[in-house]
């Protein structure tokens, strides 16, 4: 994560639509700089047909070269590329409240989601947002509209971490949608009795692609607290008093095993897994997104 973005990671910026958009733009532009420009030309690239000019048409859409050849006015029309729909699913359970380096996982997930959505807009994809907490499922249905990004950000900044994973049937409508979807699930993978895995597995169909973006903190991975602390479970409220030095190695090993296990289980189901650390940038997530998208378009 570069310093420019770090400087922006303050609540008063993160919690506004404009601020979040700014961060997303900086993340994406920084990532995309130097890549093929044609990707960012946007909608209307793919030629579809000519039709005759009618009064009231936008003069900008006149094809002047065609006029030079034929001395007739033509409007050049293109297909709008809304081939794929990107669905962001955000885990808003309490465990996402784990904070490190001044921001918590949920805020970090918001940044990643905003950046990916910004990228999706550039790719003329339709995108939507589903945030899932124990008591509430908020949905911004996927659309391709100019105002969609603002709507998306607006919902995103309102998300609060709350409760544990949602066990009601509300989430089931996300399953098994028939379209060519790219589903991005931002989570910390802390589940109860495999409920998260069940949910993710059900998302995957033959036609769509699912990416699980696993957000972890550096200290959470390495357990390098160095001392005696009381740890509190954000979801259950359970407390443990620990001398971290005594079990740092064991802990790090257990976490590595857990991550490997999770990853294997996801890959078995052809679900992409990408772990990103909170002290790193979102580039890995962006790259995975673009790779998987390309695969989806084939």
């Amino acid at each position, binding site marked *: 994560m570069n310093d420019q973005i770090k400087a922006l990671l303050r609540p008063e910026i993160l919690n506004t639509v404009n601020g979040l958009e700014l961060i997303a733009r900086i993340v994406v532009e920084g990532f995309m700089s130097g890549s093929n420009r044609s990707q960012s030309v946007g909608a209307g690239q793919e030629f579809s047909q000519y039709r005759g000019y009618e009064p009231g048409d936008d003069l900008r859409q006149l094809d002047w070269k065609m006029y030079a050849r034929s001395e007739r006015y033509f409007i050049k029309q293109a297909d709008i590329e809304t081939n794929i729909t990107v669905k962001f699913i955000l885990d808003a359970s309490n465990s*996402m409240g784990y904070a490190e380096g001044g921001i918590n996982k949920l805020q970090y997930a918001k940044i990643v989601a905003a950046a990916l959505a910004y990228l999706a807009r550039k790719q003329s994809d339709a995108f939507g947002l589903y945030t899932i907490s124990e008591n509430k499922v908020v949905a911004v249905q996927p659309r391709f509209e100019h105002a969609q990004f603002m709507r998306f950000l607006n919902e995103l900044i309102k998300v609060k971490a709350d409760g544990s994973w949602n066990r009601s049937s509300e989430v089931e409508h996300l399953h098994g949608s028939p379209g060519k979807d790219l589903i991005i699930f931002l989570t910390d993978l802390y589940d109860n009795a495999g409920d998260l895995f069940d949910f993710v597995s059900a998302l995957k169909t033959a036609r769509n692609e699912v990416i699980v973006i696993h957000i972890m903190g550096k200290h959470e991975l390495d357990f390098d607290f*160095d001392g005696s602390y009381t740890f*509190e479970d*954000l979801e259950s409220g359970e407390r443990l008093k620990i001398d971290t030095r*005594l079990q740092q190695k064991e*802990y790090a090993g257990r976490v590595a095993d857990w991550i490997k296990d999770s990853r294997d289980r996801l890959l078995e189901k052809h679900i992409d897994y990408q772990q990103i650390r909170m002290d790193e940038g979102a580039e890995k997530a962006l790259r995975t997104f673009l790779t998987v998208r390309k695969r989806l378009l084939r």
Partner: protein
Amino acid sequence: MSLLQPWYLWALPGLVIPLAIHLLSRKEGRLIRMGSLRHIRETSSRQFKSIRLNEYVLLALRSIVVILMVLLMSGWYLNDLKDSRKWLILEHGLESDSRVSALCDSLRRSGYEERYLLPGFPALDEKQEKPTQPDYSARLEELQREVVDMVVVIATNRVRGFTGERIALSPEVRWISLTPAPQEFVVAQVLTGGDSLFVRTGHSSDKETSYTTKITPNGSSVGKALGVIRVVIASDENFISDRKIVLAALQAMRKAVPEEITIEAIASSSPVPEADWLIWLSSLPPPKTSGGLVYFDEQSGGPLLIDKRSGKIALTARLNSEVAITNNLTLQLMRRIVSSEDFLEAAQLNDVRSVADNMAWRKTIAGIGPVITERGNEVSTQYLLIALLGFIVLERLLSYHRNQ
């Protein structure tokens, strides 16, 4: 062990601070909220006992730091070796005085050591051979170099004991002055003329000292016989009046002292007989003599008699009755001619005239701290500071190590 400013002990309730820290911090270590505790195993309670012990040690350390700070503020000082040294200093001769025996007894019971007011402050049980003249000023200066908490001095404030500048008593010193008992003493007891006894008796009280002389027929043959002092006065015609004056002085001297003084007046031109003293009243240079010599050597100003080398005395002015009276010629001559050291010592030793307390000591100036304990205090302040710093460092190290 004592405190200079005990009211600072009111800061001791500051001990509540480390206690509060202890009680508050004992509950929880620093809290870290984790997404899940699934990968964390509880550490066994045995390891936590060491943490708890660490906390108790920290509590103790912090309490010690607070106590040390309070002690430092209140000026705690230790006296080097003994817990407290208390001296009762008696002037020589007062140890058996009935007026102070009750006081001495009670002080002895409360731990006072008895000492003499003599150089080095010897203990009372050491035998002192002979009484000496006390020197209060010198003893007080000596006392200020000793490390003593409380001193009670019982003395008679003799006039001759005070020399030099008046000094102030330090607060640790209680000076009790006793009116000395009136003394009656024999200064000199001399056989004169073989059959009579010359006895000079001194009477001394705190107010005055006087002497009386009695010449009695010798009954008991005590006292010592004295030799004869032979004085020769040689003069020429120009010094006749001077000779008269000197003769008168010698006559007066003869009455006052027990020694027998023979006076022989000769002309300066005649040969000088053997004598103890030759008084040469002539402008000619004096002849060589084996005894003392008073010769005329006119000078302006200065004292009448000037002591020169090897027992020679210069008379610096022509004599007349006025000069003789204003310059105490008789006394001056007598001091030189008659040896009086034995008598002088006895007279001084028994001179018990005393100085009133308000005259004896300079008024204590407010703000001058205790003199005697200063050294001890410095030392313990140093130790306290070192200990305080050490404990603070230790506390910091431990609490850093604990990491909570």
